[in-house]
């Protein structure tokens, strides 16, 4: 392996890893907040991709401009999912964990089915002529950095900084942290638990929506597109530690690098082996994940 190929693998792994991190962080946030694993997380991402595609085709704007729209739309989707489904699932008296799993899993199946009905099963791509970044790439000393992934990775880093500021510097962030510490006690200081949960779901969905909006620039879009990404997101969250925002960032990058490296050293068909080996290794040493506190 030459130095150039090695650098290319590291660069590609890093860029993809930052996007994996952004996909995973919303999942981690929601889990940390209320111990619910959202099995419709990937479907949220798929909806964001269609939102971008729709905005590009119907309004005729660049996918970059469509990003805020997708993020806003996904905030509504996330909040609605909580108010319409999860809130009710949490009222179960027995087997509450199971009820939540089936509720969000059912939501995922529903979203996929309705999407296929509305958008058909065709593979969509953001049209090249309306896509400023699409297909463009810059070369640095023989290492190719695709512009969409580069910008996407930058946006992902900014999103993490923004999320960190939101959690540490704002009242909402404090309420979020407090609710996650003890959802019962916050009611005593006048925090409406339900409102925090609603906003938390909106925020979590927005983050994966942003990831979907980035992916839409360089990835094909269809109702089942999110399945492989969602699988990686669950591993990323478990690896970084359930509920940890910083953990999702570090784990996402690690997963991206592990995937790129395994695909080069082993036959590429085995590249997910690298990811799961990494996860198992961490599991043996730190069962709660790298930055988990549970």
């Amino acid at each position: 392996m030459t130095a150039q190929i090695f650098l290319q693998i590291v660069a590609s792994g890093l860029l993809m890893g930052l996007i994996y991190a952004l996909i995973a962080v919303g999942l981690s946030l929601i889990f940390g907040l209320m111990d619910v694993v959202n099995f419709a997380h990937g479907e949220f991402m798929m909806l964001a991709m269609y939102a971008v595609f729709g905005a590009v085709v119907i309004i005729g704007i660049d996918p970059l401009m469509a990003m805020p729209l997708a993020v806003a739309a996904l905030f509504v989707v996330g909040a609605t999912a909580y108010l319409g489904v999860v809130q009710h699932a949490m009222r179960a008296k027995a087997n509450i964990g199971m009820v939540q799993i089936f509720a969000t899993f059912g939501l995922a199946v529903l979203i996929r089915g309705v999407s296929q009905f509305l958008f058909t099963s065709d593979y969509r791509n953001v049209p090249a002529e309306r896509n400023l970044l699409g297909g463009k790439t810059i070369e640095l000393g023989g290492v190719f950095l695709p512009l969409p992934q580069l910008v996407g990775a930058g946006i992902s880093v900014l999103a993490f900084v923004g999320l960190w500021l939101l959690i540490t510097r704002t009242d909402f962030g404090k309420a979020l942290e407090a609710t996650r510490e003890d959802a019962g006690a916050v009611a005593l200081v006048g925090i409406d638990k339900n409102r925090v949960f609603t906003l938390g779901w909106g925020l979590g969905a927005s983050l994966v929506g942003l990831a979907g909006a980035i992916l839409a620039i360089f990835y094909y879009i269809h109702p089942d597109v999110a399945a492989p990404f969602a699988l990686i997101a669950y591993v990323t969250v478990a690896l970084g530690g359930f509920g940890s925002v910083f953990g999702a960032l570090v784990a996402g990058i690690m997963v991206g690098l592990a995937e790129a490296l395994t695909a080069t050293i082993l036959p590429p068909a085995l590249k997910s082996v690298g990811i799961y080996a990494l996860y198992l290794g961490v599991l043996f040493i730190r069962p709660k994940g790298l930055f988990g506190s549970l």
Partner: protein
Amino acid sequence: MLSRREFAGGAAALATALSTGARAQAPQEVKIGALYPLSGASAQIGNDAKTAFETAVDIINNAHPELDLPLGKEPGLPGLGGAKIRVIYADHQGDPQKGRAEAERLITQEKVTALVGTYQSAVAATVSQTAERYGVPFLSADNSSPSLHRRGLKYFFRAAAHDEMFSAIMFDFLDSLKKKGQKVETLALFYEDTIFGTDSSNVQRKLAGERGYKLVADIKYRANSPSLTAEVQQLKAANADVLLPSSYTTDSILLVKTMGELGYKPKAILAQAAGFSEQTFVDAVGKQVENYITRGSFSLDLARKRPTVGKVNEMFKAKSGRDLNDNTAREFMALLLLAEAIDRAKSTDGAKIREALATTNIPGEKTIMPWKKVGYAETGQNNDADPVLLQYTGGKFLTIFPEQAAVAEAVWPMSKS
């Protein structure tokens, strides 16, 4: 204890049931089960297949004297008193286990007469096993793995070519280029990790060895990967004279997009169809790989010689907005061939249809394909299904090989860089 009245009632009911049973011998309707991915990553293929079958059903069930096809002239199946064909769809999502369960359901619950499917070869493997167990004929429309007809199944039939036939013509083409003085020495194999990609690569690896080509890359990748960067990186480093991909639509699109992103321009692409013959692939990334070549079972160029091909294509296009392609043409033909055999069998009995299929003998001119004829060998394979090679040039597929079918000279290498 049964009272006399209950007994009488039961006997009457039994008599009615028996007489309905007797009447059912000349059915109004013949059900055929179609197994396709209607949801999941390959849903688009399944939904296009549905349109292809609807076109075939229209031709079978209604009179189309303008078409020179089996069952085109008369409405319904004359051999079964004009019975109509009805297709019952089942969704296997590309999963061999779901395919097995759905095949079982179609046979036992829906009581279908025969099965057709399945796009993914991995699913055809389980579906055909199930069909064999129940003695129901399975006609493989669009599966190309050669291993499928080598399992000694009596109820398995395939009218179209398999990947050994497809790969042989690909290598014949490369040999002919070499004779013309082109530099074709190194090959790169790139294939997905299910039975389709694996079988295809096995054949290609063997042929490359026999005919003296050097493999500079042999990459098996995970189907539906989120990223193919590392894989394309290896292809780029190898920079073979010809890239031979065996990929379904999602991976084909991602492969070409990633090639663009990593600045890799292959000297030539010779694809094992699948994703590379799909309109969605061409719409998404066709321009980036102008002049790529794919094998095919079907060519619209045939319409110049055979007007029926053009007419069927118009019928299909009116429903789907797309031209017939490698997959939809094979699916259309498969249902027609199945119906033709049922008509000749004059029965919905599995064993009788099997016999009818085994004695099929239809000249190529009575199909929409470039085949010599349709007739199944002992294995269930039609060995006269001659494939063609198509080049994507200026927004269209043109037949470039074999010479007797070609309408254009191949552009080689694909890019002049």
